[in-house]
């Protein structure tokens, strides 16, 4: 059962991905950009999994989806920490 909002989410996520790819040069200048980007990629992955769980390997995809949520949060938080505290050190 594919939920409409989930697809919308996913499609919007793809849109953001395209945006990312177009501006990949600029994004490199973001400090620790890899962390932030990966956080988003993983989140996108989660949305991917939540969409295809209706089609194949429901349980696994479901677990994968939620794992992805966790990983995304971790990465995002890490980035925030890094940004915040590193700058403090630098100052």
């Amino acid at each position: 059962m594919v939920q409409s909002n989930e697809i919308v989410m996913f499609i919007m996520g793809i849109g953001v991905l395209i945006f990312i790819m177009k501006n990949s040069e600029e994004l490199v200048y973001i400090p620790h950009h890899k962390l932030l980007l990966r956080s988003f990629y993983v989140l996108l992955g989660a949305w991917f999994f939540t969409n295809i769980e209706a089609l194949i390997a429901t349980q696994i995809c479901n677990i994968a989806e939620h794992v992805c949520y966790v990983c995304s949060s971790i990465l995002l938080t890490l980035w925030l920490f890094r940004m915040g505290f590193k700058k403090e050190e630098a100052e």
Partner: protein
Amino acid sequence: MTILTLDIVAFIISTAGLVALLWNWKYFSKCNLALLFLFLLSFTLFYNFCLIIEWGGITKVLDPYENMAGAIIPMTWAFIFYALIINNKNTRLEESHGNLKRTLHSIGDGVIVTDPKTEIKIINPVAQNLTGWNSEECLGKELQEVFKIVNTNTGERVQNPVKEVLQNGQTVGLANHTTLISKTGEEHAIADSAAPVKNANNTLIGVVLVFRDITEKYKMNQKIRKKTKNLQEYKNRLEATMKLGNLAWWEYKLDEDNFLFNDQWPKMLGYNPDKFEKYADFEKLIHPDDHERVKTAKNNLEKHGEMYRIDYRIKTNDGNYKWIYDIGNVTARNSRNAPIKTNGVVVDITDNKRVEERIRSELQQKQTLLKELSHRTKNNMQQISSMLSLKATRSKNTAVQKALDEIKERIYSMSLVHKMLYDSQNLSRLNLGKYINRLVSHFRRAYSKNIQFKVSINTSKIEVLIDTAIPLGLIINELISNSIQHGFEKQDKGEISIGLTSSEEGIIVDISDNGQGLPNNLDFDQYSGMGLKIVKGLVKDQLEGEIYFEKSQGMKYRIIFTQKQYKARV
């Protein structure tokens, strides 16, 4: 169950992220990202919360909000990325801007950037310093108002290179002799260059003018030029002088085995200077007879540091030999005091040598001549003597014979002077002691009577000129013959003493006999016999001396005179 755990974990971590955000709110708010992230995290948290509740099966009432959040989240991410990009761009721009400014400030040259209308956009501190204008004062002003340049030599106004760049669109290089006049009237010699600033489309968007104060360098260059000129002049002068004096210099560096010399030396000898490189080139031209001497002298100089002074012959280009005087000395020693450098001068003394030779030969000739003269004079006198002898033997008259004999004796005393001069090395002076001895030897042979002659010479070093010897010889001859004839007239034997001494009063000659002396009734001064008259005249007029006589046991005569300085006649 695991799903729920995962969701809870996600929730907790997101919360932690929120904490981090809030903790560093000031920093994030600087970048304008704080709100966006707050937004994102809030919705993410909400979404996570909904997922947890969903699993807990609590309610489905948050579903629509969950869906909304689900749509908002990716949008927020998009916004975040966008904002981050913009932010970074700005930061980078600002940073590079700041770097640029700092770079400009730290450049040691003056930098002025103008727009195409020659209005000043940027002026760095060095430029401000040199032009005397403050940044605030001149921004926006036209360049020529601030940047006043003139020609260093003529003082005429020079067009600033910026105008040229604007005309041609090409970089204009450094101009020579430009002086910048500051706002306060100070002058700085500068070197400047201007280049166009073009944008990505190759349109001219401005000109950058770079200039530097080269006053010091300029002054230094002037000094160097002057010094070089002076040095060149000095060198020319030296070379010309050496050439004039027919001199050449040389230098030998022992440690490097390097022989240096100026062109004058080979030129002096008529050779091409290019053919000469080392000392050996000169050495082989030295006259074979002088080779050893030169080698020894050079050795002494280099090994023992003895001054090198030697004259020798050296072959010229046309095959002849020139006389060279070579002088040298040690000019540098190493730490062990061994010579490492010698310098010297070479002088052409060929002409000098010729003159020397000529003088020597002339002197030789003169000496030979003088000797000849003495010899001939002696011979002539002997001839006269011989003629007298001949006449005497032919005469029957004893008085005539006696007279001639007397004259012969007088002649002998004079010719003996010439003979002794000829025999000695000295052509003008005669040893008086030796003369008297020889004269007396002659008397011993000449007089038949048994006369004892005693000679005492107290000073053997008296030397007299011919002008003194001749009269003295005559005087002695006269007095002795007088003693023999008159003093020993009635005797068969007797004794005559002759003494020679030197004192402060002068030269003293004593002649005495043990004869009968003068007849008692005769006064010496009145006695005008020819012999004594001559004696008195010679002593007084020629020798300018004095004669004393004493009549004790026989006659005693004492003659005192001083050696006169005769005018040189020859």
